[in-house]
C-alpha cells in the first residue's frame, strides 16, 4: 500500500469464521456486521496497518479472507463500489423477506 491519501476510501471486509457472516473491521480492531459501523480508511498507511491487523485475525481463526475494498460515501454511509461487495455488505437483492442480514 503506497503512502498518502487514497484516491478512494477503503474498508476491510471478511467472513467470520464461526458462522461465515460478512463483517467489517471496525474501530478498536473488532469486527462488525453493519458496514456503517466499520472503519473507513482514508490513507495508504492506515490501510497497510489495518490490513496487517486483519491478517493477524485471520491467522487467529477469527475471520477468513480479509480484503481491502473500495467504498464511496453516500449520505454519510459507506457503500462498496463493486456490485459483488455491495451485495455482500447489504445482503441479497432477492428474497429480502427472508434474507435480511
Amino acid at each position, binding site marked *: 500500500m503506497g503512502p498518502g491519501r487514497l484516491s478512494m476510501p477503503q474498508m476491510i471486509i471478511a467472513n467470520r469464521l464461526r458462522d461465515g457472516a460478512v463483517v467489517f473491521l471496525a474501530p478498536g480492531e473488532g469486527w462488525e456486521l453493519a458496514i456503517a459501523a466499520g472503519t473507513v480508511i482514508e490513507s495508504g498507511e492506515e490501510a497497510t496497518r489495518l490490513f496487517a491487523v486483519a491478517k493477524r485475525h485471520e491467522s487467529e481463526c477469527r475471520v477468513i479472507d480479509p480484503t481491502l475494498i473500495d467504498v464511496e460515501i453516500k449520505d454519510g454511509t459507506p457503500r462498496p463500489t463493486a456490485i459483488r461487495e455491495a451485495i455482500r455488505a447489504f445482503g441479497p437483492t*432477492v428474497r429480502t423477506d427472508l434474507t435480511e*442480514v
Partner: protein
Amino acid sequence: MYRYDEFDERFVHERVAQFRRQVKRRIGGELTEDQFRPLRLMNGLYLQLHAYMLRINVPYGTLSSKQMRKFAFIARNYDKNFGHFTTRQNIQYNWIKLEETPDILQHLADVEVTGIQSSGNCVRNITADQYAGRALDELADPRVYCELLRQYSFLHPEFSYLPRKFKIAVTGSPNDRAAVAVHDIGMRMHKNEQGELGFEVLVGGGLGRTPYIGQTIRKWLAPEHLLSYVEAILRVYNMQGRRDNINKARIKIIVNQMGIDKFRELVDKEWELTKDGALKVPDEEVARINAYFAPPQYETLADETASLAKLRAGDKVFDRWMRGNVIEHKVPGYAIVNVSLKAAGKAPGDITADQMDAVADLADRYSMGEIRVSHRQNLVLVDVKQAEIHELYRALVALELATPNLGLLTDIICCPGLDFCGLANARSIPIAQDISRAFTDLDELQKIGQFTINISGCMNACGHHHVGHIGILGVDKRNEEFFQLTLGGSSDQHASLGDRLGPGLPQAEVPTAIRKIVDKYLVVREHGERFLDTYRRVGLEPFKSAVYGAESQAA
C-alpha cells in the same frame, strides 16, 4: 427406495463425528483455512458471499417424505426458512453456520442423506430422469444402475482426486429428461438388435467455460459391464486429464482434443484388462438393488378420463395444469404430478420450510410417501391416483405450488447467481423474476408452447444456459451486469448448444428482448412447431433483427 445397509449407516455417522472434530480443530486454531477447506468441501460445505453454503445430495433425485421433512427442519432451525433445489437434483442451504454444521449433518445422516461428494474432484451425485420407474415411455428404471454406480464410486480411493469433478447421468427413456448429453458420462438405456437392454454411453459432454455435447463412445453396453466400463473411462481420464489448468481439466477437453476414436481406443484397451474381472455386475446384485426400487403396491384402478374431463371443463386453470404439469403414469388409474417451484416472481428452485413440510404431507397422503427432484428445479409426486388429482391440485394451489407452467416459458432454470454465489459475475434470480412477471398470461404461455429459458450468473453454467431454447448468461462489464442471450440450445435426446444472439443487454432490457424473440417466433412459426423447431428452421437472423433492429443489419 434404497436404504442404507449397516456399513453405509455406520460410515456416514463416523464421518459426521470426524467432521465434528475437524470443525473443532479449525475453530480452535489447529487448522488453517487452507488445511480445512478440502475437509469441509468433502462434506459439501462451501463458503459463499454471505455465509457457508451446504449442498446435500439427493441421489438420482429420489426423496422420501421423511427426508423432505428433515430438509424443512434444517431450513427452519439452521437456515433462513428456505432451501434451493439445484440442476443436479440436490438441495442447497445458503445461510449455514460452520459451528452448527456437524449437528446438521448428524440430523441428515439420521435420515440417510449426506453432503459427501457433493463437492470436490470426485464422482458427484448421479442424476436420473425424475420420472424414473413410473414413466410410460421408459424401458427400465435407471435408478438401479445409478445406485450401483453410487455405491461403486462412493469414496473410491482411485477416483477421489480426479483432475476435476465428474458428473454422470442416466436415462431409462428414449425421451431424455436427464440432460445426459451434457454430462461427463451420459447413459441412455436402449435395446440392441437382439432386443437386449443396455446402455448407449456418451462421454465428454459438459457446459461451463467450454461447452460440448457428449459423443457416443459405445453404442451398446451390457449392464453387467457397467462398472468396468465406467472404471475404464475414469482411469483413462485420471491418467490423461490435465491437472495444470483448472479450465482444461474436465474430461470433455481430453475427449475433444484427442478425438473420440482415440479416446475410445484407450478406454477399450483399459477395459480389456478388467471387463471380465471382479467388476462384472452379478445378476443377484442387480436384483438385490432392484428390489429397493420395486414399484409400490398399486391398486387396480381404471383411468378417470371422464371424471377428470368434467372437472377440466369447469376449471380452465385446472385444465391447463392437467395439460402441462400432469404426466401419464405407466399404471392405469395413476398419474405423475409435477409440483412447480416456478411461481411468478419467485426464485426458481426455492422452497420454504413450510412448503417442504406440506409437500411431505401431500406425498404421504397422495403419493405413497415419495418425492422426486427434477434437474429443471421442480418437484414431482410420482404415484398419484387420478381420482385424487383434483384434491391434490387444490392443496398445491393453496401452497403456491400449482403454477401451470411446466415446460412453458416461465419454467425457468436459474442458478443462485451473484445474490448468493461467490463465483457469479451477475445476478440471475432477478432476471428470472422479471421474465416470470412479464409472462403471467396463461393463455399466452399456452400459445407460445414448449419453451425453456435457462439462466446462469457466470460461465460456469450451473443454470445450463447453453442448452436453454433461450440461454441467458450474466457477465460483468466494468462493474455493470450485462446478459448475453443464446438461442437454440436443448438438453434432450437431440441436444444442441445455443448460438450467441449478439451483444450483452442490461438487466432492464432482457424481458423486452425475450418478448421480441417470442413475438417474432409467433409470426414465423409453422403449424405445430415449438420455438426450437422454428429456430432450427429459420436460424438466428430473424431473432437478431427483432432484438437489435437496424444495428444488427449494420453489423
